[in-house]
């Protein structure tokens, strides 16, 4: 049972204790127990535990169940420190050898090491996938045990909210966030501080804050990784936001398909409550705030703010026209601020180190870093965090290790079903909100799907249109019927039954759907079609011939 923290001093004292615990002179085995579970991480973990027990090594070795370590292509992955080696494709059979060689004797097992250009790279710090990233939001992810609040606190966790509560006014916080240049990481890129300010200024005694964790783009798993790997960062971000806005109640709207994230959040919330970091009179400051988890029922459109609000209210998750914006009339008609997971996870670092420090990364239009979920035809699929302004080439080739086999890079699909395909000619484009838009895609939430020369772009367009068609809520005509008709036409073309007029028809349907749809889902649903027509018209024409 954790002891309630009654003051800032209590928090400082606890941190000192937690730091001591972490510093204990033990070999640490970090096992990803989230995404890597899909390929047997639990069994590996079990075996480690059993072996250490048997070999009486418990006092010398500590196993840390972590969140995502990033290099999902090598799952299940573990890191052993010292000596700081990174192993992938770990199996149960090899655990005894890892213990005897690496854990006990600092010896590297070659076959488990990451290989690039035929060269083994045993140490994590030397692997380009890691060394070329800049982990700000993911600073704890893969390093701490997300189910242990002590480890978060040891790494300056909850210092930001303490700082906010005792040294800042809500207006100071809003200004700091505005100064940081942080923009919404959910896709639209709206300045976060300004959004908070709207809600702060909205009339009303009761205000709500919602964390949008309804991540749904195909191939995107940034938010899941953050929630699973560092849930307290999100909770702390919400606390700061709540303080800034003047909210006493928050909701985390997380999709039910993320059971590990929900589980970790539940535990994190329970621990934070025990420590009086959630609840009444937080850290003795007089500030009250508590959180509730709401599970989404599997509708992509509930990532849209107004649909998400309807869903929390118990209604059918359908968007409504704005204004009124949620900042003025949101959940149950009260002023409501909604931020995405990654946005909120940025907050503690901004408050902790100040906006100036935060701005050292990124571009003028896009400060800080961005997490991408690298997927598709790329060697190092996984979770990547880079400063804004990094080029696609750096992400895909330097960090991602390039295209497997002998095939060529063809395009990168950015921004999920709302985004577009960026062709090879734009590989050196420094990525930020505006530049990506210019080339017909969007930054989106961070999904990045790599396509090689074998990929059919019409097929891709059809896939995404199918996705939007399935996920359309049905409320507005252009999205409900438009996605259906466009999907029908794309299916026809892809099946070799296309007619010459079909492309013009597609363009007109895209125009109507974009122009007339109620929410972002319909308004952007034609993007993959339009961007593939723009860059890969030849592929359409070949199919229609």
């Amino acid at each position, binding site marked *: 049972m954790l002891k309630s923290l009654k003051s800032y001093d209590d928090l400082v004292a606890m941190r000192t204790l937690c730091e001591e615990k972490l510093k204990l002179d033990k070999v640490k085995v970090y096992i990803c127990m989230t995404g890597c579970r899909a390929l047997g991480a639990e069994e590996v973990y079990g075996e480690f535990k059993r072996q250490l027990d048997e070999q009486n090594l418990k006092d010398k070795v500590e196993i840390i169940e972590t969140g995502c370590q990033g290099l999902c292509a090598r799952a299940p992955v573990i890191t052993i420190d010292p000596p700081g080696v990174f192993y992938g494709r770990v199996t149960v059979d090899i655990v005894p050898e890892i213990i005897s060689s690496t854990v006990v004797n600092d010896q590297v097992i070659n076959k488990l090491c990451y290989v690039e250009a035929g060269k083994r790279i045993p140490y994590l710090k030397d692997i380009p996938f890691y060394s070329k990233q800049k982990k700000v939001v993911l600073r704890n992810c893969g390093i701490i045990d997300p189910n242990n609040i002590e480890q978060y606190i040891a790494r300056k966790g909850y210092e930001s909210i303490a700082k906010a509560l005792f040294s800042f006014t809500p207006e100071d916080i809003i200004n700091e966030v505005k100064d940081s240049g942080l923009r919404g990481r959910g896709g639209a890129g709206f300045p976060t501080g300004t959004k908070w300010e709207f809600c702060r200024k909205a009339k009303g005694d009761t205000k709500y804050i919602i964390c949008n964790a309804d991540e749904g783009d195909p191939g995107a798993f940034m938010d899941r990784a953050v929630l699973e790997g560092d849930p307290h960062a999100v909770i702390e971000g919400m606390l700061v936001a709540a303080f800034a806005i003047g909210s006493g109640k928050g909701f985390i709207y997380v999709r039910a398909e993320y059971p590990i994230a929900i589980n970790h959040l539940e535990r994190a919330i329970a621990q934070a409550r025990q420590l009086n970091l959630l609840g009444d009179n937080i850290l003795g400051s007089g500030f009250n705030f508590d959180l509730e988890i709401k599970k989404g029922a599997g*509708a992509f459109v509930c990532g849209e703010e107004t649909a998400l609000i309807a869903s929390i209210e118990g209604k*059918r998750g*359908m968007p*409504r*026209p704005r*204004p009124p914006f949620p900042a003025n009339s949101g959940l149950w008609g009260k002023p409501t601020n909604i931020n995405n997971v990654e946005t909120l996870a940025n907050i503690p670092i901004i408050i902790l180190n100040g906006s100036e420090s935060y701005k050292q990364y990124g571009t003028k239009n896009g400060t800080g870093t961005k997490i991408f979920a690298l997927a598709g035809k790329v060697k190092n699929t996984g979770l990547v965090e880079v400063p804004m302004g990094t080029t696609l080439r750096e992400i895909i080739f330097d960090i991602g290790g390039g295209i497997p086999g002998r095939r060529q890079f063809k395009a990168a699909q950015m921004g999920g079903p709302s985004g577009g395909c960026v062709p090879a000619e734009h590989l050196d484009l420094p990525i930020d909100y505006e530049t990506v838009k210019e080339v017909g895609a969007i930054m989106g939430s961070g999904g990045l799907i790599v396509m090689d020369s074998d990929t059919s772009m019409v097929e891709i367009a059809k896939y995404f249109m199918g996705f939007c*068609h*399935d*996920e*359309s*809520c*049905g*409320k*507005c*005509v*252009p*999205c*409900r*019927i*438009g*996605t*259906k*008709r466009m999907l*029908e*036409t794309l299916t026809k073309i892809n099946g070799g039954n296309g007619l010459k*007029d*079909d492309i013009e*028809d597609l363009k*007109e*349907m895209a*125009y*109507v759907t974009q*122009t*007339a*749809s*109620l929410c972002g889902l319909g*308004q952007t649903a034609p993007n993959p079609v339009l961007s593939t027509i723009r860059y890969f018209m030849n592929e359409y024409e070949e199919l229609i011939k």
Partner: protein
Amino acid sequence: MEKVKLTINGKTYETEQGKTVLEVARENNISIPTLCYDKRLDPYGGCRICLVEVEGARQLVTSCTAMVGEGMVVNTESEKVIRTRKGVLEYILSDHPLDCMTCEATGCCELQDLAYTMDIKGIDYRSGEKIGGVIPDRNELIYRETGKCIRCGRCVRICGEVQQDYAIEFGGRGFKMWVATPFGESLLDGSCVLCGQCVSTCPTAALFEKKAMGKGRSFQVKKVRSTCGYCSIGCQIDIHTNHNGIIKITSEVGAVPNNGNLCMKGRFAYDFVNHPDRLDTPMIRVNGNLEKASWEDAYDFISKKLKDIKSKYGSDSISFISSGRCTNEENYLMQKFARAVIGTNNIDQSETECHAPTLTGLRNSLGFGTTTNSIEEISKSDVIFVIGANITEAHPIIGLEVKKAVRNGSTLIVADTRRIWLSKIAKTYLNLQPGTDAYLINALMNVIIKEKLYDEKFIEGKTEGFKELEKAVAKDEPKEAEGLCGIPEETIKDAARIFANAKRATILYGNGITQHSFGIDNVNSLVNLALLTGNIGKEGAGINPLLGQNNGQGAFSMGAVPGFYSDYQPVSDRAVRKKFEEIYKVSLPKNKGLQIREMFNNAYKGKVKAMYVMGADVLMSEPDTTRVKKALENLELLIVQDIFMSNTAQYADVILPAACFAEKDGTFTNIERRVQRVRKTVSPPGEAKADWKIISELATCMDYPMDYNSPETIWEEIRTVSQNFAGINYKRIENVGIQWPCPDTNHPGTKFLYEEEFGNGKARFSATEVKSSHEKTDKNYPFILSTGRTLYHFNSGTMTHRTKGSVQKQPYSFVEISQEDADDVGIKDEEMVRITTRRGQITLSANITNRVMPKQIWIPFHFVSAQANLLTIGSCNATHSKGNSSLMPEYKICAARVEKLQ
């Protein structure tokens, strides 16, 4: 409201902030098409047809949701708008059967009209999959076909937002979205009340009136505006007819007072009009049997008999029962017949059995014995106090107003012995014990006075008798009321504070207040409460009795009561009588006539010899049926003028077949004092005639010529003798009814009473001593029985039992009983039980529910098969009437026994 200027299509308009672009455009005759828009609903923005271009906006905006702003520049017809609008419409048509040639909605289909005006010719490239088909549903009223559904959500929204029944909701999503019922069941099985509001708002034929199908398109049928003949709200209806009769009833959005809303009865329960059971020829009893007769024979028979009885026993041996179901003109004629032709003040009607205490109580305290405020004001009240009124069933459209108000933030307090629907959305529900209303109200006032929450200025300036009230309620502590009413002390205090602190609080009460032997005390207490808090004489406030019958209000105000001529002019007033004698050209009786209750008592005793009953099934509606039957049997002459062979008619010596509301012209006065037109739409069956015609002809036959050639000529006479109606004529109420008082033709009518002053100068508190007088329960009769209305039937049921839907939804009677009691008695849901009281017994089906509290049972009074009034108490406690003609039987409470039928 702040003014803003905006430009639409290059022209500048000034308007008020808070309006939508669509509203302003339509006000200025700029046409913007819509499909998902209905004024009654929250803007939805789903169909995307009303998109317009607003300068500076990132996207096209839906004009139904966009609020006007200063300097806004709007283009409703730009190339972009037209291109997009057309595209969207083509999308809709691409998923539509396009079978207009056989579609029921052709001619009244919003989609068809839009496709026509937008000049859509052929939809070539969108010839993909179409979805949906006819949904089989065994309900008899509402047809559902998803293929024609454009998913505008109007049905779903009207069901949720307006009706708040939530019987339908969108199921599935995207292209496969459809309007669903829970688990795909029939509308009969869920929370649907078959109001057909969904049908009324459907822009296509995806929802349609089953009974109207195949009977003619909108352009082939006749449509006549009239006033609904069921409850007292006076909903404006459009009756659609073909050569065979009525095919459907609709209402227009914007119509006053119902704004296009109708309940199940108003919309669907018209089958009785054309029913083969209708009386279509006069009948005279010959040798014990009723035989068909000509009108001449019937008139001669009646005339001779009445004359005989009058000369033998005197005028006062004859009694007249007029009808809250008939028009103002007919009620006026009936009282004129009684007074001028026969020479008796023995004229009354069955609304008296519901609201005599209202007439007396409100009149004595305030000036007029009627509703103070209007229906539309309910939504302007901060606090609504509903007591003894199951509004959502007995007055469904007022129920919608209450629901709307609560949805928009008003606070609702409900006091009822049953857990009625409104208790679900009430902030405070006062679940009181039967017959303890006055205790409760006095306790509320006790708190308000003790905590000084009353309106001192109002009391000082506009009332008298406050000191007496203060004294009277001082002892009615909420703590004591807790024991009597069964409501926690704190809840009573809370309710008192909520009510007293409201800027505008309205009281809505029904028969639960009045139908007690001490109903007058209940009414007086409520008046006191309203006065105490200054809630009389202002908008959104008032004290509003919910009269039961369509023209109960008119029956009272037209003089179909023993003590008053029309416009509540007392018969005891010599000057008044003189005025009427001059106009009626006969001398008029000055003695006090009999109230309906006394008529039956006197008939029972043999003192009343003849009775003329128009439009009332007294054998069903009067308490203690056995005694009433005896009274009827005692009569030497019973004349029944009705549309069906009712229970009462079976005892008649002469039957006169009458026209129903759809078959005659005239006016009804609704609950809010609004005089509204009733129009002849179809012809009466056979030889049946309008009541006004029958009365006129009979009077003429009895040597008192009444040569009215139309109801309008009768109304003109009413105007001349009734000051508060003088300003109302047929021309003025052609489109919208006018609320009396309306003294001259320039007067707009009166929305709410007593804005300037009270009828008697000052309003009077009437301190009431609360009493308990109801029949006590004992070992043999351990339950308290109460009776009342349901949504699907009306009064004695002669109309609704001959109507599809009503019967399907509620085919037989039932008794509501708690689970606890059902277990004690050993009965299961829907098992047959026998209910016995000290007066009689009936058998019916058990309905186990938590709507009633333990030791209480409740029965609807609509069923001939289980006549609730065989059980009720007929005698009135005259000591409570204080001689002020509010004799009221103890309808609502009697002791009863429940037994399982072996």
